[in-house]
């Protein structure tokens, strides 16, 4: 049918007129977009938080200079920075960051691999959802640190304990994120899939999963946050055995030595790793995801 369409339309003057009319209306109704360059966008995203950081550190230093508190109770920015440098020079900082990131990343990936099928099952199978849904929501509220004592008894002082706690923290969030993503799919999209003749498998892969992606992604983000928090808690509590040296262990060590500068420095490092993962990995993917679907407010572009 489409093959002979063009030749048929080419000789029809009234069709040309309709074409021009439609083109005119289209351009009247189209919303002009004013794209900003990637550089400008990055600049807009990076400058405000850096300004705030500089301001906070300056205020902190001014307080130290004016109030002169006991340095072992309230260390200044210089002391904390010094602690960071000494941790770097003794290679403890690098070791702790890589160990923790490795555990967090691996644990998160395992959590994704487990949470995604559970979420799909929950979203598409009513009986499973009625049975397992409340339990999963409950697990999401339960602080995963609560599992640490049980995990130590089961797995001893090993990496398995740490991973177990990460999974208990991250899996419910990821599964629940996918469920809410699937729940928010407009029913019309599924109907279109049916009308277009999609099989069950095609419906799942070509319609349901891509449509649920924004919800799933925010579940992943939350899952990472839970994984990172659980990891830190586990590392602070589980010390010794054949467990490696992570950021939590470093925090614990500094506390044992009553080294407040070291404690604060470690807290800052944990915070920055969290921010960095959000800024470097999650934020760009999420921005892209939402912008492509027109779900992003104009001001945030």
């Amino acid at each position: 049918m489409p093959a002979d369409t063009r030749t048929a339309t080419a000789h029809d003057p009234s069709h040309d007129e309709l074409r021009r009319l439609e083109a005119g209306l289209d351009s009247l109704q189209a919303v002009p977009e004013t794209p900003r360059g990637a550089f400008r966008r990055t600049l807009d995203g990076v400058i405000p938080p850096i300004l705030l950081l500089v301001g906070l550190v300056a205020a902190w230093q001014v307080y130290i200079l004016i109030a002169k508190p006991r340095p072992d109770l309230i260390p200044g920015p210089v002391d904390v920075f010094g602690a960071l440098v000494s941790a770097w020079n003794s290679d403890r900082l690098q070791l702790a960051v890589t160990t923790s990131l490795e555990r967090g990343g691996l644990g998160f990936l395992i959590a994704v691999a487990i949470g995604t099928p559970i979420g799909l099952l929950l979203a598409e199978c009513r009986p499973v959802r009625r049975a397992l849904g409340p339990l999963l929501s409950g697990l999401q509220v339960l602080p995963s640190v609560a599992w640490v004592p049980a995990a130590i008894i089961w797995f001893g002082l090993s990496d398995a304990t740490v991973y177990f706690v990460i999974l208990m923290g991250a899996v419910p969030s990821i599964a629940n994120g996918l469920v809410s993503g699937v729940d928010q799919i407009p029913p019309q999209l599924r109907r279109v899939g049916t009308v277009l003749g999609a099989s069950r498998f095609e419906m799942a892969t070509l319609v349901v999963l891509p449509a649920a992606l924004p919800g799933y992604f925010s579940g992943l983000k939350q899952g990472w946050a839970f994984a990172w928090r659980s990891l830190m808690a586990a590392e602070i509590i589980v010390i010794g055995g054949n467990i490696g040296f992570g950021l939590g262990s470093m925090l614990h060590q500094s506390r044992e030595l009553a080294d407040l500068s070291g404690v604060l420095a470690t807290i800052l490092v944990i915070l920055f790793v969290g921010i960095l993962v959000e800024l470097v990995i999650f934020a760009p993917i999420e921005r892209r995801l939402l912008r492509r679907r027109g779900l992003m407010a104009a001001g945030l572009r």
Partner: protein
Amino acid sequence: MTVLTDVSVAQAPPALEPVAITIDSLGKRYGTGPLVLDNINLSIGAGQFVCLLGASGCGKSTLLNIIAGLEKPTEGAVTVASGKAAVMFQDAALFPWLTAGHNVELALKLRGVPRKDRRAGALELLDLVNLADAADKRPHELSGGMRQRVALARSLAQDRKVLLMDEPFAALDAITRDLLHEELERVWRQTGRTIVFVTHNVREAARLGQRILLMSSRPGRIVNEWTITDAGSRRIESPEVARLGDEITDQLREEIRRNAS
């Protein structure tokens, strides 16, 4: 243009052309609720443009969904001679994560068109609705009328002989709707599809239909039908459309009044 009024609807029209859709004593109720559709008998010829007209809640969308196979009839049977039908809804329901071109390509893919032919096929279909330039745009970048045209191209991509349309232009502004009437009529003449067009807009039905079926409400029955001998395109503001519209409106109001008591 001549208007023939034929109240004895139960009879099939003279079968000069092959029949595309046959509906045989169709009834529908939801659960134990009241009858939604009652004893619908209908035969739609291939290539016909049929408008299904009725007040809100008369079951016209239900009837369309049954023809589409999205709902099951309680009694009776529906036969679509060419197999399944393509459907277009009031909401364009384009997949927001795909560009206009990929939306059409997805329909081609689900139809089984090989990958290498899909891009060209999609562009050709988009060109048919004057949107070849918008192939790389995403649905949120298109206006409502453009989205509906992409949806039209997508339902044409299914390459089914029957196209079912459920108030596809109801949410559009009047200027856009007027243009889309012209567009749809042109596509219909070019592709020879059988179209069943559900609407509650009398003028729209009088503008587009070759055959207009008026439905009563609660239960939904087909109470009257008008056949318009096709003498080329007609404008929505033309006197014959107005005259036919007046006649249909009078009867539609009569049907609605009956529900007052």
